[in-house]
């Protein structure tokens, strides 16, 4: 099977802070991988480099076997990548439905010329409605995003990412702001999506949920990968316990 994502020797520093050091791993087609690590470990930075929002100081990113290190974000998304933002970024002037329908219309909007000559939105609206009900936002289609609580905006992030119909989705803390039951439902949705063929990387502090569904865990600490493997082995790893447990005890309890 081909590797959907290959991260090769990625490093980046912000001023004097080395945020990532020689990070390498691959994600195979169909996997559901949990990416965990304490606050400031570099998880979001890694996602931004994979998405092309940040350029690494060194290293390569491959999607579906092709080097995309120099491609802009939009081009990577066209190749089947979708990401969600840890700090939610809804389009503030749009309703929940429009936020999602815009994502569903990626085939039109990815090329300005195509976008100029198309107007009909019906099938994208329908697609958006289905996606919204899938993440638990059914009934909120016409809501103003500025009036929504964080938990709902987190779901909207997931809905938009799903609406671009990705092969690979990387979710940055999609469970923040959701209560116990909502988090469980959200993770079930993500697992079902993965079962449907979407390769998934789940960045989360909610270890209970991560351990419940992920077949593989990647642990990042201080900008380095300190463990990679099946969840039981990884959680028994001493370095992981030292780096992670304690600092993240409160998250485990949450």
């Amino acid at each position, binding site marked *: 099977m081909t590797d959907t994502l290959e991260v090769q020797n990625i490093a980046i520093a912000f001023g004097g802070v080395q945020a990532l050091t020689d990070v390498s791993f691959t994600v195979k087609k169909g996997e559901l991988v949990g990416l965990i690590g304490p606050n400031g470990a570099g998880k979001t930075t890694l996602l931004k480099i994979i998405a092309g929002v940040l350029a690494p100081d060194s290293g390569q990113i491959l999607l579906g076997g092709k080097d995309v290190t120099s491609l802009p974000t*939009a081009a990577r998304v066209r190749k089947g990548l979708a990401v969600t933002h840890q700090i939610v970024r809804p389009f503030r002037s749009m309703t929940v439905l429009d936020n999602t329908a*815009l994502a569903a219309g*990626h085939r039109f*909007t*990815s090329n*300005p010329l*195509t976008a*100029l000559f198309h107007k009909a*939105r019906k099938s994208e609206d329908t697609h958006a409605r289905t996606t919204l009900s899938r993440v638990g936002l059914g009934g909120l289609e016409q809501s103003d995003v500025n009036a929504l609580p964080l938990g709902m905006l987190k779901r909207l992030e997931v809905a938009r990412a799903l609406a671009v119909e990705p092969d690979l989705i990387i979710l940055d803390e999609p469970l923040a702001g959701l209560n116990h039951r909502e988090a469980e439902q959200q993770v079930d949705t993500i697992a079902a999506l993965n079962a449907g063929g979407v390769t998934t990387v789940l960045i989360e502090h909610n270890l209970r949920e991560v351990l419940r569904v992920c077949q593989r865990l990647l642990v990042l600490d201080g900008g380095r990968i300190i463990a990679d493997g099946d969840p039981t082995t990884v959680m028994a790893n001493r370095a992981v316990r030292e780096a992670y447990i304690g600092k993240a005890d409160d998250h485990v309890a949450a």
Partner: protein
Amino acid sequence: MSLYAYSLLSIVGINIMLAVSLNLITGFCGQVSLGHGAFFGAGAYAAALCAVAGMPVPVALLAGLFVAGLLGLLVGFASVRLREDFLAVTTIGVGFLLVGFVRKQSWLGAEMGISKIPASGLGPDGNAVMILLFALATIAFSLYLKRSWMGFAFRAVADDEQAARTLAIPASTYKLVAFAIGTAIAGLAGGLYTYFTQFIVPDSFGFILSVTLMAMVVIGGTGSTWGVVVGTIILTLLPEAFRFINEYRLLIFGGLLVLVMRFAPGGLAGIVTSATRRLRRA
């Protein structure tokens, strides 16, 4: 109708083209441009040179459209890399640069401008009709654009460029496209202006015009085509109706601009929308 009425209609039509095209750039795509007058000027000069060289009207108008659009593309390329707030300053600079450049060019008539531009052959009434038809076409295009997927993507880029990129929208390309379309329409308006006055000077295309156009957009309602059209008509006709307004034009427009931005950022369109919403609820 009198000659005065025809000239008034022509000026209203040209201003509508200018304000609506600026609204494409600023209102739809979120890029503040304070140099729109310069692109209008580029179109006017390009058309004037063609007309003086004896070329037919459509060719001169197309030249205005293309020269301004290419210039817009150039300025756009330089500015997509800039941070948002720098764009406003850059466009002011481009405006001054262009007017300053034309002033020193003898082949463009320098300070004296270009006079004795051949007539379009349509007469004052024919000119006014042609200008109004182009203004209507601009309005129709703007209304269509807003409802197309391009308008949808423009809104996403205006809201949050970064989020737009993660939904496969090439934000910088869209910003360039908005700039090129908006400045090309301004250039076409410049060509029409050339045939309307048959005499152009560099000072007509400076900062004062650019700010006035921005006032029309903001007061009418940034992003609303009809709002901008109404704002343009009001701000164009008011100084004609009341002499004193003409004398204090800049002061009044500038003051209104600031007041609207502070107290009614949606402009006239925003006020109407919220009023109808309140009426419906009551």
